[in-house]
């Protein structure tokens, strides 16, 4: 049973510490003063050397945000957030464009080493050009607090015609593309956190895959929150033209702190005719300690527009971190025959709260969507699946299948399922099923009888429970996700 062996080894290696990414990097930072006002937005915009239209867009979003209230409908509770007590800009003070590893701030270098990114990749992360002939499968954009510190493989990608760069750079270098697509999937005033993000977003990735190009490697962004009293507001925009395709991975970690930090991201995906986007997330923000102190508030808006016929957007997420998760990656299925997929594993332990799910909006004919959501609750945590399937009158032949399964470990946690089904077309078929149960005594007994410890047995069963989702992840991520599941549930049994 390799999965169990692997997870057991992972846990043994960790010893007592359950969150191995919880260290803090001591590095000289450039911090904007605390607070949020037009001056701060102008400051962010000028630091990013943005054109005037971008600043105006931010200010308009800020004004909209001021008239909005925090959403209250999710099944999460947290004390009111003081939005004026946050630094909206934090960047490590590094020399621009280091030519070799020696020039890169050693603290930054060490951070990547500790985060477990392989050495040669790590060299790349810090902005060093790869040696001739060396080819790696994944291009990485590393976002450290408010800025992107390095993006790898840009040359290789550029040869294929793919643009992969920090969004702040895209605003300067490719304004026509950014202007055409930014805010078209998630409008600036879409919701409270999207408006906040639109006003103050600092970095994130921009991907443009031109017509007919199959992106030669997987793209990845690694988000790291490091500074105190900051929030991270990244913005990702991925545009895939006709017949093109891309697979994109996202990872994230943060130091262990008593304070709560806000992460309010916006991700927009656009897929044209026959285009395909696969977006995978392993979300591992610091979840807070056993008593619920600290941890990241992960309030993000992710949405993809299948604009073209036969386009496809697939979201896969493994959510193990964050004190609170508020996240609904969605698909707007506009193009005829377009396909939306959502595969999710959400694990909560201790005092974590997660309210996550998806929206599938069927607008075009013969659009199809699949939702597979697995929820695991342990400790004193609460986990909610909240999803919407809407079939509009023109979406004849639309098809949806939804399956939500919840697993409860212990009698002090909660698992909830709140699907919304709105169907306005008689030629559509919508199916939804959901189950809630605990780990089967029979399965547990079977594993124990064969010599597995209770913890290993639970890990094995949980991995099996999540298999439908984990198999959708790219290989390396699937292995990491399996380990994460085990670590997240540590101490929840026995």
């Amino acid at each position, binding site marked *: 049973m390799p999965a169990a062996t692997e997870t057991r080894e992972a846990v043994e290696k960790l010893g007592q510490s359950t969150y191995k990414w919880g260290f803090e990097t001591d590095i000289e930072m450039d911090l904007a003063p605390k607070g949020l006002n037009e001056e701060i937005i102008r400051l962010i915009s000028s630091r990013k050397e943005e054109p005037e239209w971008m600043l105006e867009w931010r200010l308009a979003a800020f004004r909209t945000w001021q008239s909005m209230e925090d959403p209250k409908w999710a099944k999460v509770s947290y004390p009111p957030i003081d939005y004026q007590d946050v630094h909206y800009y934090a960047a490590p003070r590094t020399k621009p464009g280091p030519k070799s590893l020696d020039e890169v701030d050693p603290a930054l270098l060490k951070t990547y080493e500790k985060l477990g990114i392989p050495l040669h990749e790590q060299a790349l992360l810090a902005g060093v050009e790869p040696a001739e002939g060396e080819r790696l499968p994944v291009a990485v954009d590393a976002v450290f607090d408010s800025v992107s510190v390095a993006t790898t493989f840009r040359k290789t990608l550029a040869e294929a015609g793919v643009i992969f760069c920090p969004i702040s750079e895209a605003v300067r270098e490719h304004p026509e593309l950014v202007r055409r697509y930014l805010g078209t999937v998630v409008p600036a005033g879409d919701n409270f956190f999207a408006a906040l993000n639109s006003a103050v977003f600092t970095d994130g990735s921009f991907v443009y895959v031109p017509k007919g190009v199959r992106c030669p490697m997987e793209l990845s962004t690694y988000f790291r929150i490091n500074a105190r009293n900051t929030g991270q507001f990244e913005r990702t925009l991925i545009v895939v033209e006709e017949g093109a395709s891309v697979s994109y991975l996202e990872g994230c970690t943060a130091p262990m702190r008593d304070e709560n930090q806000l992460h309010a991201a916006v991700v927009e995906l656009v897929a044209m005719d026959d285009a395909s986007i696969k977006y995978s997330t392993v979300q591992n923000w610091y979840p807070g300690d056993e008593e619920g102190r600290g941890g990241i508030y992960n309030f993000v808006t992710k949405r993809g527009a299948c604009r073209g016929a036969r386009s496809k957007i697939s979201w896969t997420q493994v959510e193990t971190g964050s004190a609170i998760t508020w996240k609904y990656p969605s698909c707007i299925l506009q193009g005829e025959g377009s396909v939306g997929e959502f595969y999710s594993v959400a694990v909560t332990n201790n005092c974590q709260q997660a309210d996550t799910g998806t929206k599938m909006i069927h607008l075009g004919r013969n659009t199809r969507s699949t939702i597979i959501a697995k929820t695991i609750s342990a400790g004193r945590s609460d986990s909610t699946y909240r999803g919407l399937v809407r079939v509009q009158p023109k979406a004849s032949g639309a098809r949806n299948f939804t399956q939500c399964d919840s697993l409860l470990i212990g009698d002090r946690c909660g698992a909830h399922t709140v699907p919304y089904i709105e169907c306005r077309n008689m030629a559509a078929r*919508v199916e939804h099923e959901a189950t809630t149960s605990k780990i089967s005594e029979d399965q547990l007994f079977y594993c124990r009888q064969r010599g597995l410890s209770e913890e290993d047995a639970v890990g094995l069963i949980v991995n099996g429970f999540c298999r439908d989702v984990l198999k959708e992840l790219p290989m390396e991520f699937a292995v990491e996700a399996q380990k994460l599941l085990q670590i997240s549930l540590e101490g929840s049994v026995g």
Partner: protein
Amino acid sequence: MNTISPDRGGPLALFSQRLEGLAGAERQQAVAALQHAGLPTRRVEAWKYTALRVLGQTSLSAPAATYDAAAARAALDHVLAAQDGLADQPRLVFVNGRHAPDLSVAPKGVKVTFFADAPRFGNAASPDRDPLVALNTALAEDGANIQVEAGVDGGTLLLVSIGLGGQALTFSFHPRHAVVLEAGARLTLVCVQAGQGAYFHNPVTDIHVGAAAALEHVTLQLEGAEAVGLGTVYADVDREGVYDSFALGVDGLLLRHEVHARLGASRAAVHVNGVQRLGGAQVGDMTSVITHAAPDCISRQTVRNVLDGHARGVFQGKVLVEQIAQKTDGYQMNQALLLSPDAEIDAKPELEIYADDVRCSHGATVGALDDEQLFYLRSRGVPDAQARQILIEAFVDETLGLIAHEGAQALCRAMLARKGGAGESA
């Protein structure tokens, strides 16, 4: 005292005159709760899919003291004629919310008093919880208070509410019913809400099912074509008790049947089933909250919607399992059949679970009539309209079969047959 404005209190302003100067602690408390919360708009989660805007802009007064006795008699006969033997059953008849002794047939073995004589608000329905219950508490004038003593089989009792309205919506009535089954008692209560024209009917029924008692509660919503018929049931079920509820939504401009069932002691069971058959511009809403507050309880729910014309069906079903309610067995299924390109279904099956040793599941499906099944029937010479009718009947048949009481089941079938064939029906 706060004044109620249309923008703050939703449609509450329609009742503002009647809410002034009410006597009695319960009613004053209810008015305070209403002034605080207003009547629900679609921004309230529980009313996300059903708008009370249809109540219009005109103030709703209390019903007139007198009514057209012949029309009431005709409406009652229309119901009673639906099935042989129904006319001989004991029945309590209310017209425009008030008890009509001349139309009623006194039951045996069941104690009945009337709200108008001795107001009793009951325990399960607290005005703080639900604005429509608060509105009922403030404005209730009459209602039946039904009691079946320990170990007694109360047989079958018909509770007929007749609304007689005109073309425009001008009045509302808010009956307050209570049903208490003591330990080991049994009763089949068939509530028929029938009428003509426009009115707003907002009954609240407070139910207690005692230990090992069994209540079968069948509600038929056959309201007037322009009427708004809501209905809120709060049922509390004791150890080994059974509350078996079935609702049939057929006629009315806007219908909502809302059941709050609480399994308060072990080995209790509730069934909250229903069928909606809507057409024209009708909106029908079946909402339920089943709370498992004790271990080893069972809940079952099957709701089927058949929607034609521009009709919109709403299903909101929540199953809440409290931490104490280990070994809960919950199942919920909602299915909708859309017969017209303009029909719509909005479904929200919801599980909220705090106990780990449970088995809970729900399912929902939406679709049109199956082309292959239709083809099968057509290829055997069944005309199209008839083939559709057969398939529609088959779709709701299984759910109707869940009504244990044969007479009540037959009555529901008869009312569905009156609603008409597969084609458009208003």
